[in-house]
């Protein structure tokens, strides 16, 4: 079982759903670069061999009993990391789009800046975009929209390559958006007057599988996230439904 050892321990979190073609390589890459870091894969009840591949690659694996979606998976990882006493968690996607070479940069920025969240951004210094046209339009829209709400420019609001410190971990372990969580998470942090930083990263093409955000789903995505942002702005902070 993974343990939080050393000063300000860091855990790598990889949510994965049907990623048997890529997750093993991602874990091996992280292992090669940062052999000391514990890696937790949260398997979202995959129908393929994701769990087996991840275990064989040397990661610890949590498998949720039914498909929760990305947010539920990430939150399960945050909960465990918080309970185990980790100070930092960096999330990588299981499809290989996030190059683990930037884990060090994200960790250093978390420690140095004291920001509660650090986002790996593909739109700073033009680092290998690898995103669909529809999603690109969504990113431009939300960049503009969030600049108004957050009163700060965020170049890559949909990036899942994020690191959080223990303060954000505590918040997200309690409550985390279920679907398309990245943008709503930023608004949650802003409401708590937490800070985020962005660092340039290069995104790669997926190693296997296809994105869940298709052109048609992009419209649903925009509506869902917009509603989620508005709800988060209106949310009464005193009510906590989650146990």
């Amino acid at each position, binding site marked *: 079982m993974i343990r939080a050892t050393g000063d300000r321990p860091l855990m790598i979190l990889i949510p994965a759903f049907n990623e048997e073609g890529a997750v093993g390589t991602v874990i091996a890459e992280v292992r090669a670069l940062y052999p000391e870091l514990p890696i937790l894969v949260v398997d979202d009840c995959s129908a393929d061999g994701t769990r087996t591949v991840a275990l064989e690659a040397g990661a610890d694996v949590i498998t*949720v009993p039914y498909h929760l979606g990305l947010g539920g998976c990430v939150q*399960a990882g945050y909960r465990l990391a918080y309970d185990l006493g980790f100070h930092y968690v960096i999330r990588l996607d299981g499809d290989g789009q996030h190059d683990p070479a930037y884990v060090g940069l994200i960790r250093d920025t978390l420690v140095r800046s004291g920001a509660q969240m650090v986002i790996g951004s593909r739109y700073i210094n033009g680092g290998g975009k690898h995103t669909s046209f529809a999603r690109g339009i969504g990113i431009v829209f939300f960049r503009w929209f969030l600049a108004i709400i957050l009163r700060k420019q965020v170049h890559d609001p949909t990036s899942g390559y994020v690191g959080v410190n223990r303060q954000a971990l505590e918040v997200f372990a309690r409550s985390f958006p279920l679907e398309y969580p990245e943008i709503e998470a930023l608004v949650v942090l802003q409401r708590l007057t937490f800070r985020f930083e962005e660092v340039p990263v290069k995104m790669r093409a997926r190693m296997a599988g296809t994105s869940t955000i298709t052109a048609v789903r992009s419209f649903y995505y925009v509506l869902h996230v917009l509603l989620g942002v508005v709800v988060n702005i209106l949310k009464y902070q005193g009510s906590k*439904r989650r*146990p």
Partner: protein
Amino acid sequence: MDRLLAIIAGFSILLIGVVLFNIRRAHIRVEYSVSWLSAAFVLFVLSQSPWLLGQFASLIGLNSLPDALFIIVGGLFLVVFFRFSVVMSDLKDANIALTQKIAILEYQLNALHEKPQASDRK
């Protein structure tokens, strides 16, 4: 109008009967049946009291009693559906929290089982 009121009265009695039958069979919990029973009761009272219906119609500026009745029926069911949306949201939140907790506990339990086996090998 009389026929419409009779249909509404019949419908509300049927609704009360169906809800009570399902409570008896334990298909619906008592706390979730209250909304349906209340809605059915209001409909029955209104169907038996055209005067009350007329008061409501004049209150919202309608001349037609059937229109007022449909607004009341629609409004009541919207309230009931909203209440169940709240209940479903709570259940979904609880379900997710439980699912995550089960997954974490299973992971910790497996780790505990592996530990003695590892020490046995030594």
